[in-house]
C-alpha cells in the first residue's frame, strides 16, 4: 500500500515526531511505500538544521534526514508553518532577505497542496499530533 504521514508534533516536545519516524520505518519494513511525510505546524521543526541536541540524545533532524535519504521519501515542510518558525531553505532565505538557510537540505519547503496531493494518491494517511 501507499502511505503518507502528517506530522504535527514538534521533535522538541513530546513523542509524536519520534513515534512517526519509527512508525514510518515499520511501514517500510512491512513492504509498503511511503509517498511523502508532510510536516505541518510545530511538526516543521523536524527540519531545523540549526537545532543542537545534547550529545547523549539522538539528533531528531538527522534521524529524519537519514530516513528520507535511505528510503528516498519526500520530507516536506509546510511553507507557512516553516516561515513563521524561522525555517528557510536557501531560496526562501534570499526571498525574505534573511542571512542563512536553516533547514536540512534533505527537507523541502512547499505548500499545503503537497498534503492534499499526498491524500489523493495514498491508501493510508496517518496523523501524528501532540
Amino acid at each position, binding site marked *: 500500500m501507499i502511505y503518507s504521514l502528517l506530522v504535527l*508534533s514538534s521533535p522538541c516536545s513530546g*513523542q509524536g515526531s519520534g*513515534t512517526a519516524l519509527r*512508525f514510518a520505518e515499520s*511501514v517500510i519494513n512491512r513492504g509498503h511505500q511511503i509517498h511523502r511525510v508532510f510536516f505541518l505546524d510545530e511538526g516543521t521543526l523536524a527540519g531545523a538544521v540549526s537545532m543542537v541536541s545534547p550529545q547523549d540524545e539522538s539528533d531528531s533532524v538527522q534521524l529524519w534526514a537519514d530516513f528520507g535519504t535511505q528510503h528516498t521519501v519526500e520530507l516536506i515542510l509546510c511553507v507557512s508553518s516553516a516561515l513563521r518558525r524561522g525555517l528557510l531553505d536557501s531560496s526562501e532565505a534570499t526571498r525574505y532577505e534573511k542571512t542563512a538557510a536553516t533547514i536540512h537540505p534533505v527537507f523541502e519547503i512547499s505548500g499545503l497542496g503537497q498534503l492534499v496531493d499526498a491524500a489523493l494518491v495514498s491508501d493510508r494517511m496517518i*496523523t501524528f499530533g*501532540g
Partner: protein
Amino acid sequence: MVLHTLNAAPGSTAFSDCLRLLKQSDILLLLGDGTYAALKGTDGCSELKNSGAEIHLLEPDARAAGIVDRLDMQFKLVDFDTFAALSERCPTQQAWY
C-alpha cells in the same frame, strides 16, 4: 473500521472525545500519555473496556511510563510493526491528542 490513536491522558478532552467515537468494531492504539488509560482498575480503563473495541498499547511508551506491571491484562502491548499492521487493517485513522 477506524484506527484511533490516543496520546493524551485520561481526563483530557482528547480522551473523552475519543471515547465518544470509539465503537466496538474499531481499534484503539494507546501511545504516549494515552497509555495511562490502561492502568488496571481506573475509571479510564473501564470506560475503554466498555467500548468493546480492540485495544492495544505501544510497548516502549508503556515501559517509559513505568506502568507495564500495572496494566489491565485485557490490553495487548505491541511494537511498531504491529502498529503498522493495525494501520493496514483500518482504512481510516483518527489521531486524538
